[in-house]
């Protein structure tokens, strides 16, 4: 007989769920899969999303998009900064997640988490500055104001990096959020735990439900659904370079059917995520709107 407090406990084995529309549903298919550490030890069960889950996630993202894009730039910045505060509060959990998942040493895991949080803050700061930098008052030959400004593309499907499960993830989901896109992200297949924890962070933050939707499961199963989905406006293929059974060229071809904006992977392997932080990544998911307005006299 075991006695409470004697040091021997029954394991609390976790079975995580998806994060869709601000809620944590199980996969519609009822499937789960085992997530193992870099050394092969059991970490947790994760939901194995199906194409219907992807459809539901896109629907949630579509519903949330006008509200998120309609929030003032300043407000979006505040909301995103608050996420960074919560990430900081969960630092220990993230460090543990990526130490186990990526097999990093303690100090390197700490450094990766710090870099991810700093990156989130960096992008949060851009929300009310992008229009000044990327927008313009165009000179025209006539009595008109001619103004160009960046607008969000809409619903963005993101295939998250397979290796860098937190820094890489933050590097691909924060940029589209800046201007008011909503995101459906397929987490790293083998290392989904940081994405799941990020979902929990987002659920307790001020980010409206549906703005970020996290799917875990087989990338090869989910990516084509997002690529061919007619209601997805853009696709980031960052994690498609080295996912099992995925050829990113095929995904790009599927996306071409509906003229999606596609951000290709850079090179044949994952980039050094430490260096991947730029305004260009925000602008990859914007459209330029130009208006003419009479000057009057």
């Amino acid at each position, binding site marked *: 007989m075991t006695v409470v407090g004697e040091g021997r406990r029954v394991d609390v084995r976790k079975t995580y769920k998806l994060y869709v529309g601000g809620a944590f549903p199980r996969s519609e298919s009822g499937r789960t899969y085992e997530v193992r550490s870099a050394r092969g030890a059991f970490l947790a069960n994760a939901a194995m999303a199906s194409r219907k889950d992807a459809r539901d996630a896109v629907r949630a993202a579509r519903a949330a998009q006008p509200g998120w894009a309609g929030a003032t730039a300043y407000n979006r910045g505040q909301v995103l900064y608050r996420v960074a505060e919560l990430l900081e509060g969960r630092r220990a959990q993230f460090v543990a997640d990526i130490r186990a998942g990526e097999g990093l040493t303690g100090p390197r895991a700490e450094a990766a988490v710090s870099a991810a949080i700093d990156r989130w803050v960096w992008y949060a700061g851009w929300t009310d500055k992008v229009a000044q930098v990327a927008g313009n008052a165009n000179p025209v030959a006539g009595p008109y104001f001619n103004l160009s400004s960046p607008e969000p593309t809409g619903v963005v499907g993101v295939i998250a990096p397979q290796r860098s499960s937190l820094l890489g993830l933050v590097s691909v989901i924060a940029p589209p959020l800046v201007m008011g896109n909503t995101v459906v992200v397929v987490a790293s297949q083998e290392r989904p735990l940081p994405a799941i924890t990020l979902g929990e962070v987002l659920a307790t933050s001020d980010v409206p439900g549906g703005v970020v939707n996290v799917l875990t499961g087989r990338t090869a199963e989910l990516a084509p659904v997002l690529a061919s989905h007619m*209601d997805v406006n853009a696709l980031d293929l960052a994690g498609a370079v080295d996912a099992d059974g995925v050829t990113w060229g095929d995904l790009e071809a599927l996306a071409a059917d509906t003229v999606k904006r596609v951000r290709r992977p850079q090179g044949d392997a994952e980039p050094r995520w430490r260096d991947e932080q730029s305004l260009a990544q925000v602008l990859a998911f914007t459209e330029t709107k130009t208006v003419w307005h009479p000057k009057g006299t």
Partner: protein
Amino acid sequence: MSTTASSGTVVRPWDRSAAQVAQDAAGLIGSAEISNTALRRYLFGLPGVDEVGAKARAAQLGTRSIKTTAKAWALDTIISMIDLTTLEGADTPGKVRSLVAKARTPEPGDPGCPRPAAVCVYNDMVSTAVEAVGSSGIHVAAVSTAFPSGRASLAVRLADTADAVAAGADEIDMVIDRGAFLAGDYLKVYEDIVAVREVCHQGERPAHLKVILETGELVTYDNVRRASWLSMLAGADFIKTSTGKVQPAATLPVTVVMLEAVRDFLAATGVQVGVKPAGGIRTSKDAIKFLVAVNEVAGERWLDPDFFRFGASTLLNDVLLQRQKLSTGAYSGPDYVTID
């Protein structure tokens, strides 16, 4: 199908004369004179509805999985059963014309896509709709009799109906006097329906009469069953759940109760009355559940736009999206259908 009569003997309700309707009613209630007492005795003699059972039955029918070719058939059948509806205070002739254009060509990319059975508009929009419909074969349904409350004198309600019939409406959706029904004045409800039916039959081609029970205001399933029978006794061609202006509107259990009523009415009289759930059916998934219920409760002969309709405005778009998904394999989105 053991309870339904064989197909040779089935009578379509709009083919009956007023005298035949009265005769059928008298035969059923067992009294030559149709009085409040006789109606009450008959309606209260109907077996009560097991509310828990009805809900459980509906929930169980909703669990059927309809896939691939069956789903494709269901989607096309649903479209052909839709009464595409706009019932807003802000309806303009332009909006009605665009609704009709949508009904005429629901899927511009696919000429094989069936058309909805009818467009359903307010009374004063009937002439606009009739003109826009032209010779397409789509019916024009008008909501008459002081829709949605029905709180006007009989003379006003009859004039309202005559107006719509004169303007060329093929179908009239009338509301019953729920106040009279709840107060127990069944004869008044009966006589109202008989009077409206008479107006519908004045033209050379009778306008089909759909009787709206407004089940959301009838409180109990027993009342729904009684109102269904009362309407059918008085000569309804269709019984319709709701106006769409009151919540709850068309729920599956209520529709199951009404389907049982039309099934039993056919068995008792040989007359096949239609059913129209209206209000709150927005997704293909929900609509398919209704089709399953029609097939399982009433029978296959009701899977026909002449005997089953959906009153809906947004359902059509969702069905079109599902159709596109089936034909292309990719999920579709609201950018690929019209904005109402």
